[in-house]
């Protein structure tokens, strides 16, 4: 207790030097929680949005289907297996047919992916019901906001699409944009045109076929796959997001490391200076009978207290900042679609207990280690030398 009191008094006695160290350290502490909170918030949002708009509760893919390789689309469709057909009939799954094609907005050719979806489906949160509106012979089509921006298409516009049927014969027709979807998942928006499933089946001459089947989130009796239909669970479907967030998190570690390094360097410097300037004091402690361990403990505690003070100072200004961003969110730039995963217009952070406790422990342990390293030199110090002002 005496050591703790002494350490605190010494720390306060150092005045502005202590508070500068504490402030820099608190900055690292608050920044780590703030940035990491946003990364976790982004992860959480992207996962939920992907589930809502694209992945559902898992999917079955045609064995040749690869969403990243449009070359596979023309061969990756087949009639549904009885088990999948049964799931679809009771509303626990919805089929999607995929093919590649081209559109010609304002006479410019642009490659697109044509996706057929059942207008009645309730599994994905896509406004597919608009596709059941067939006023005349023109096929209705849904596009996302990003796609609308790229192609300059608006609701009511008609655009020519060109595709190849299952035999490779060209076909082309006009479709009418019946709705522009505001979906945050770029994978269902950028370069995608959604058409009524039966319409696309007719266009491709692939009756009763699909490229993938999306399961509802609450399906408990997921059938096993077969040689044509391969089950893809959520771990598989969300792997890309997990990896992207891990990568982003990894690059943020450089920032954390830099901030923390600045704080720790200041403390290390202070400790080295303190030991050098207070060597007579150390010698006096030892001469009066204080054990070396306790002297080391005193100096280590002085350094470590910077960490505690940084937590307090960080909390004073950090809690309002974190609470404000938690309530208001952070507006995302317009280029969010280029990021590759679903992002909201305003990003809300997620501060988990693990993040708070983990960051606190990281700061405290790092500060303690940095404080101990210069203090450990005291172990080799002779009291007589110390009293004379020598350090070794």
């Amino acid at each position, binding site marked *: 207790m005496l050591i703790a009191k002494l350490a605190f008094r010494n720390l306060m006695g150092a005045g502005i030097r202590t508070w500068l160290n504490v402030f820099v350290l608190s900055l690292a502490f608050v920044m780590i929680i703030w940035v990491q909170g946003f990364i976790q918030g982004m992860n959480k949002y992207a996962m939920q949005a992907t589930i809502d708009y694209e992945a559902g509760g898992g999917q079955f893919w045609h064995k040749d289907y690869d969403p990243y390789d*449009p*070359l596979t*689309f*023309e*061969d990756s469709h087949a009639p549904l297996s009885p088990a999948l057909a049964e799931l679809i009939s009771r509303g626990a799954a919805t089929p999607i047919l995929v093919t*590649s094609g*081209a559109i*010609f907005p*304002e*006479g*410019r*050719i642009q*490659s697109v992916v044509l996706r057929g979806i059942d207008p009645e489906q309730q599994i994905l949160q896509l406004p597919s019901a608009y596709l059941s509106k067939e006023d005349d012979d023109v096929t209705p089509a849904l596009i996302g906001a990003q796609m609308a921006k790229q192609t300059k298409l608006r609701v009511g516009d008609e655009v*020519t699409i*060109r595709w*190849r*049927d299952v*035999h*490779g*014969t*060209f*076909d*082309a*027709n006009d479709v009418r944009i019946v709705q522009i979807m505001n979906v945050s998942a770029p994978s269902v928006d950028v370069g995608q045109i959604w058409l009524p499933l039966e319409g696309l089946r007719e266009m491709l001459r692939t009756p009763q076929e699909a490229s993938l089947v999306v399961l509802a989130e609450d399906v408990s009796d997921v059938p096993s796959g077969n040689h044509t239909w391969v089950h893809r669970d959520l771990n598989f479907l969300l792997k890309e997001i997990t990896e992207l967030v891990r990568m982003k998190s990894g690059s943020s570690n450089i920032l954390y490391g830099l901030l923390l390094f600045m704080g720790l360097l200041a403390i290390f410097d202070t400790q080295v200076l303190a030991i050098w300037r207070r060597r007579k004091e150390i010698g006096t402690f030892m001469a009066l009978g204080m054990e070396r361990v306790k002297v080391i403990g005193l100096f280590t505690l002085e350094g470590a207290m910077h960490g505690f003070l940084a937590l307090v100072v960080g909390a004073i200004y950090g809690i309002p900042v974190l609470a404000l961003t938690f309530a208001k969110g952070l507006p995302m730039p317009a280029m969010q679609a280029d990021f590759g995963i679903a992002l909201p217009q305003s990003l809300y952070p997620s501060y988990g207990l693990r993040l708070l406790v983990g960051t606190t422990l990281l700061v405290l342990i790092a500060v303690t280690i940095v404080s101990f390293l210069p203090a450990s030199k005291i172990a080799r110090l002779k009291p007589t030398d110390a009293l004379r002002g020598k350090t070794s």
Partner: protein
Amino acid sequence: MKKAIIILGILLITTPALTHQDSLTIVSRAPTGEDILERVDRNLVIDQATGVSTMIIHGRRGSRSITSRFWKKGDENTFVEYLSPAREKGKKMLKLGDKLWTYTPEPTDRIITIAGHLLRQSMMGSDLSYEDMMENESLIDLYQAQVEGSQEAEGRTCWLVNLTARVEDVAYHSRRIWVDMERWLPLREERYAKSGKLLKTTRITEVFRVDGRWYPKRMIFKDMLSKGEGTEYIIDDIDFDVEIPDHKLTKAALRG
């Protein structure tokens, strides 16, 4: 003299009748669609040939020309080597059956396989797909032909023929061709989607006679769904009387 006048009179009287008779004969002997396609194929389908061609792509930001040397063997195998511009020089393309490889010279030194859907993509931003470019199949194998009548196209009298696919795996479901009555070349062509939408047009604006057959010298391809000005394809030189060695049509030749 009297005899001569009588003979001349008979000739004068009968000549228009004979002429008329002749024109009737032509109409009554109008070739069938199959006849026309056969004669067109005879001109266009290549057994073996090598030559130099220039493609002029008229885009929004101006025009660019690409010159290449080609070797064609049968309806499935083609080898192309680009000669200019400098950016494209040394690039090569090989088509064997329904597979196509492109080679980019050093420093890239890479061979890329183009198959399936990519064959249908525009070639170097032109109005031609790789498939269109390599097309050498005989029309008579792919289409049923119906003669609609005669019409003028590119300043020549032509047979107007409607083609409808007789096989399922054909790129264009139907075509209309205007075939020169004398030279048996489709001077104008319209290619349609299954829905009936006009997709592409082709015009042969210049022809030349080489090795006993009429062949297009200058063609203009136009993708009717996009706004561009079309792509010109000019045969600078062609030789049908060649023996293309088998090793020329191999992947090894791409790096050769």
